[in-house]
């Protein structure tokens, strides 16, 4: 692999990482959360009417913990599917 090809691969992966970083953010009750593995794991501990801190360090009341978990999990799955598809396209090139 030439240096130009290596750079191109690195840049394509960085762009994919950036896309995931922007797309995994979702807004819930006006607060922004990241649908990443950490939040998915943390969400399992949340109960109804608990306060959690969003990305901008702002408190947010989660009235319905199940609804929050559902929204989060959907977003997480959606973004990982896209990541997988795009990743495969990049490494095959």
């Amino acid at each position: 692999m030439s240096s130009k090809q290596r750079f191109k691969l690195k840049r394509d992966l960085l762009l994919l990482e950036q896309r995931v970083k922007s797309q995994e953010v979702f807004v819930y009750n006006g607060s922004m959360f990241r649908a990443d593995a950490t939040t998915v794991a943390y969400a399992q501990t949340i109960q109804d009417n608990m306060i959690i801190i969003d990305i901008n360090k702002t408190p947010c009341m989660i009235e319905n913990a199940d609804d929050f978990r559902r929204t989060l999990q959907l977003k997480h799955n959606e973004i990982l599917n896209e990541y997988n598809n795009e990743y495969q396209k990049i490494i095959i090139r």
Partner: protein
Amino acid sequence: MNTKKLSYDKGIILFSFNTPECEYSRITEKCIELLRIHCPDIPIVVVGDKIIKSANWTILSDDPPPNLHNLDGPKQWKNLARVDAYELSPFERTVVIDSDYLVYDDCIMKLFESNQSVLAHRSWCDLNYLNVSNLPMGKSLLDMLWATVLMFDKSTEVKQMFTHWYDIIKNYQYYAGLFGLNKRMVRNDHAFTLAMAKIQNYGPVDHAIIPWDIITANQNIEVKKISNNEIVLEDQHGEFTVNQSIHILNKESLLNAIK
């Protein structure tokens, strides 16, 4: 339901003033075309020196005081009207976007849904050097906030922040000396950063940060081809394609690609 009221609740403002070197109105038209696809139903207002038909409204304005950018030799740059966005915006919640910020995703819609009263980018992703970082502002310890994409609400605090911004531009030489900034070029990003710092008593501004990076194609990157789904760019490492929102600094090549 009052649909007229809804349509004025939120919207996008673009500033567009042509200079002898660059026909910004052409870039603005392309920016609006992309916004219509990726942020449908959001009204768009242009503040500028020429009516842009594709916008919902154009606010015709006198030229702002000329500025210079000297990245590639001194060139005129009419970017100092940005500070009037608060007064000119007809919306309760406004996103101001540079016309050279090309929107290829729906991330701006998230800004409209947020509870924050101001949001802007702090970290940037440089596609030429594959680097993600915060830029220090001059010789200070403050991290620069980008005024390229700026969401704000109409509120007393935000109005105060814009007043600080205006004062900083008016007294830019003083602030440039104080913070070690380039005195020859008034930079909106710096004035906005200082205004935000002042409103927070130089405390943290974490609550006002857009939680993804502003992807930037710097002057070394040329625009080769532009469509409504992606943009093809080229630098010394070769061609590459981007299908997410991106800030293009090489305006000449952007304009050529649009033409």
